[in-house]
Each structure stands twice: as C-alpha cells, then as structure tokens.
C-alpha cells in the first residue's frame, strides 16, 4: 500500500517540476471527478455494510460447506456476486473453507464472482457506463466465472 502512495507522490512531483500549471489543472480534474462519483460510492458503501451484516462469514461457511457440488457452486457464485470483499479477507476465508473440505470448484465460483461481478458496485458502474452495459457486463462476467469454476473442477478431478 505504501508503494502506491510513494508512486503517486513521485508522479505528482515529476509533473509539478515539468509544468506547474498543468499539475494544478490535473489536481482540479481529480477533485472534480472524485466529487462527482462520491455519492455513488456512498450508496455502494451503504449497500455493502448492510449486505455484509445480512450475510456474515459464518453463513457463507455454513452454506458452502454443507451442499453437493452443483448446488454449492451455484450458491457460491450468487454469494460472490452480491457481496464485496477485499482480497485480504476473501482469500483467508477461502483457505478456511478449503480446509473444511469445500471443493476447489465451489471456491473458484465464489472468488471469481467476488472479483468480477458487482451487485453493490452497480451505482458506480451505472454512472460511468449506463444501466444496459452494466447489466450486460455483469451477466457475461457471471458466465465466465461459472466456466472458470467448472474448469477448475475438471482440473482437480471434482466433476465426477
């Protein structure tokens, strides 16, 4: 994370040395773009905080652990689609599930939809790309995640 700050700082400094006015202009653009999208971010944060309360980790563990593979994969992909978790929470959770005997296929469905399909990011994506494209992109991503899950299942010999 610190590298990101250092990198940003370095870029701004270089830009400032090269052209002071352009840098001011850039920061103005940054602020404007940020303030325009801020309400959508706030709505997303509200959605995430409510959904994570309704679907706690313990519930995910319970649902993914007790099902057959087909149902598990579908449930996992739905959970992954509606929630949003940073990787540093999601993968340790997947690690726990793996030790509990949850199949790789189910975990692939969960982690891939988590990263690619965004129900809670809908307000943001819609602002930039419009409702229609947002829905299309998310549906395609969902299908890709399912294909990835099946492929993972096949490689680990979990399909039969």
């Amino acid at each position, binding site marked *: *994370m610190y590298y*990101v700050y250092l990198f*940003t700082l370095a*870029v*701004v400094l270089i*830009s400032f040395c090269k052209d002071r006015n*352009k*840098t001011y*202009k*850039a920061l*103005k*653009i*940054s*602020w404007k*773009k*940020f303030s*325009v*999208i801020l*309400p*959508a*971010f*706030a*709505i997303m*944060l*509200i959605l*995430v*905080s409510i959904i*994570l*309360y309704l679907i706690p980790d313990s519930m995910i563990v319970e649902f993914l652990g007790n099902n057959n593979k087909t149902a598990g994969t579908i449930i996992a992909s739905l959970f992954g689609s509606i929630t*949003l978790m*940073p*990787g*540093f929470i999601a*993968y*340790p959770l*997947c690690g726990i599930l*793996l030790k509990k005997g949850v199949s*790789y296929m189910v975990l*692939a469905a969960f*982690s*891939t939809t988590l*990263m*690619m399909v*965004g129900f809670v990011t809908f307000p*943001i*994506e819609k*602002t*930039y790309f*419009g409702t229609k*494209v947002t829905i*299309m*992109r998310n549906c*395609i*991503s969902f299908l*890709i995640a399912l*294909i*990835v899950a099946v*492929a*993972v299942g096949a*490689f680990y010999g979990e399909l039969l």
Partner: protein
Amino acid sequence: MKITGKKIINLSCLFLFSAFVGISFKTGFIPGQKIGNNFISFSLEMLKILPCAFVLIGIFEVWVKKEKVEKHLGKSSGFMAYIWMVLFAGTTVGGLYVAFPVAYSLHSKGAKLGAVFTYIAASGICRVPMTLFEASFMGIKFSVIRLVVSIPLVILSSMILGHYLEKKDYRLTTVE
C-alpha cells in the same frame, strides 16, 4: 452544481442511513451498530486507495495525449491492445470500484470499448498482488488454472461486446 432529483434521492439515502446508525448507537440496537461499524471500516479501506487513484487519473488526463492512447488502444489498434490492458490491469490496486473511473478515463482518451471492458474484467481477476495472495492460500495450481481459463474468455467476450456496442454506435454518457 445543479441540484437534480437524483441528488436529492442520494442525499436522503445518506441522511436516512446516518440517522438509522445514529439512533442504533443511542438505543443499543445491535444490528444497526454492526452495520454502522461495517460502513466505517469499508469507508476507511476505500479512502486509503481512492485519493491516489483519482490523483493519478487527473495526471493521466492532463499529460497523456489522445493520439497516443488512440494509436495503441483505439479502434484501429490490433490484438495487442487487449494484451496491454491485461498487463495494465495487473498493476491495479483495489478492485472494480477503482477500475471503473480509470476505464472511463481511458475511453474518453480514445480507447476502444473492447479494450476498456478487458481492463475492467482483468482488474477484477488478475491483479498481481491479489493473485500472489490467492496462491498462498489456494495453491499455485489453482491460480494458474483460473488465470489461464479466464483471461482468454475475458478478452473474447470483451471483443464481442465492444464490437456489438460500437456497431450500434453506443456512446457513453458524459459524467459531469
């Protein structure tokens, strides 16, 4: 800034939510408190990343010439555009919510839609730090299979979606 109907809805959502959380803390309503805590921890998480992202977007918009983006990522660019996008996505920090504004800026600088969709999807699935972290929990084999299967599918579907939308002369709404 104009006050539109949408803004009023957004503001009232925010107001209702903060009232709900505030009252929950006053009256000891546990679910409301938990939701409030979730909100705060996620907001902090995002505030760590977003300022950097938007500053870099601003710098990008000012310094990078449209012709340059168009040449490498625009409509006349070839397959390499998709490879560039996957590699660039690998360096993205955060997740989809960072990728959207970046993707929007790329498009307004002339990147074709297919390349933009590739970038969004790839920044979900092939961020380098995240993939390393994933491999440490799930095994390298898992990560490799996931990447090898998903990247071609992402590129293919983005190409198709991009071509389809460009044929229909789809225009992104301007975010002002």
